[in-house]
């Protein structure tokens, strides 16, 4: 479970990205974070990934208050997460296989286990035949899928996706979202930040609406239908 308790995030330049946000995300839930650019969606995900720290309030993930995690334990906490951004930030000098294998190598998996898991992840995103290619030779959609494979290869408990379909055409975007849905179906907690309202409407999951750093609505799919 992920719980935000009156979380405020103010950046050093004075910009308030999140203001007094309280939110609860159940374990295994799939949630969409909606809102325009600058609404605070990315900051919310970064706070969960401990890439940022809240200015006020606190955040509890799986019963652990994140502000109490020691600096040297942060990497071990991050190994429980999978993070996907609009730009998948793949390493161009490394093959697709090596890019995906990165979290496993860091966690100290042996070669045999690494190869098995990487191939399984690549198969899931439909890129097994591209394992020896380098990222620049892939299309944008394929690169995004490599990023997803890298985020899920170590079987994380939480999957955080920040505008994962930002650069993709509608067809490919739908395909990627279905991929996330499959991870949700096997029990992974999935949080997706996107401003693509039309795309999100096709999926029956909770939508959390943010505007100017404030939580506007947090509707379950059924409630949404009733409102509609």
């Amino acid at each position, binding site marked *: 479970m992920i719980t935000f308790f009156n979380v405020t995030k103010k950046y050093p330049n004075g910009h308030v990205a999140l203001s007094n946000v309280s939110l609860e995300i159940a374990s295994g839930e799939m949630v969409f974070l909606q809102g325009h650019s600058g609404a605070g969606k990315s900051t919310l995900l970064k706070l969960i*990934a401990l*890439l940022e720290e809240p200015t006020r309030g606190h955040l509890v993930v799986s019963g652990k208050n994140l502000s109490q995690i020691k600096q*040297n334990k942060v*990497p*071990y*906490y*991050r*190994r429980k*997460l999978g*993070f996907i951004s609009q730009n998948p*930030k*793949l*390493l161009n*000098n490394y093959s697709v296989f090596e890019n995906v294998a*990165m*979290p496993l*190598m*860091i*966690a*100290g998996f042996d070669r045999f286990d690494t190869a098995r898991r990487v191939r399984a992840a690549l198969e899931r995103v439909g890129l097994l035949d591209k394992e020896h290619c380098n990222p620049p030779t892939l299309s944008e959609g394929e690169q995004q899928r490599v990023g997803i494979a*890298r985020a899920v290869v*170590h079987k994380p408990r939480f999957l955080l996706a920040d505008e994962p379909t930002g650069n993709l055409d509608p067809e490919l975007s739908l395909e990627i979202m279905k991929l996330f849905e499959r991870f949700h179906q096997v029990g992974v907690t999935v949080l997706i930040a996107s401003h693509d309202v039309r795309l999100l409407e096709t999926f029956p999951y909770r939508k959390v609406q943010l505007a100017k750093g404030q939580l506007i609505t947090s509707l379950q799919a059924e409630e949404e239908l009733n409102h509609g």
Partner: protein
Amino acid sequence: MAKAIMKKRNSLPQVAWRESVHRYLTSHYMACKLSLRNLSTSPLTTFLSIFAMGVCLSLPMSLYLFVKNISHLSEGFDQGSAITLYLNPHASTKEVDAILQRVKQYPFIKKATFLGPEKTLQEFEAASGLKDTLALLGENPLPGVITMELNPKETTETELLIMKEALSKMSSVKSAAFDYDWLEKLAIFLLFGKALAHALYLLIGLGVTLMVGNTIRLALERHRDEMDVLNLVGATKAFIRRPFLYRGMFYGAFGGMIALLVTYIAIFTLSNPTQQLVSLYQGIFTLENLTFYDTVTFLAASITLGWLGAIVAFVQQRRALKEY
């Protein structure tokens, strides 16, 4: 059954220990591989950096060899390695004995002989053929002397100069001199050479550290994305830093190898002309090369400098890389 459970329990920490060692070694292997791969992505830049470093490092190495060879050359003059103490004309037997006792305390003195004024005069008369002329003088003008033979392999130029200075200050000693004056000058020159070499080691060491530091700093900027990705997927600070530290060490190691190569080539090139020069003076002298110990020490020092350079780069970039 209980025994089996106990055995299993006892073996658990061992397995964990083995596993953590395996993980540690694997992460170092990966860091090593990553840094070598990153070096190979820009071969020309890498080669130029390493070559510049090698040339820099070859300077102190060459100076070290030069001083070593000159020292070796001076050791060849065994017969000249003697010091003579000229005593005051009125030095008593007791004072002479005291000087001899003092002289024998130095472990590198092979033999010390006292020649009284009469004996000195006799030797001088025999050697110069001026017996009649000397007879015209009312009294013996020559002082008593103590000649000392040294074992040059057991001493250094510094020790000899210190001993000479100490003996000169004794009340019954008028002066002390090396039998071959140029040897004393050579000893002073060698001292200067060694001091210069030490200063150069420090300067070049500092230069190489800063050079590696700057190269690594640029690499840190270039590989920022890679560091961000590693950070995001749960790499520890040590894991992120390690490839750069290895990179610094590789710069040091390869630079050191180039410096050694340059030095070996210089020795090889100079070897024949030196032989010819020495043979003109009926001497036997071969240029001394680097020993195995010298080579290993030098390589270890250059690797350490590379590693220090990488540390310097992280210190320089500590604000920009605060999460690493």
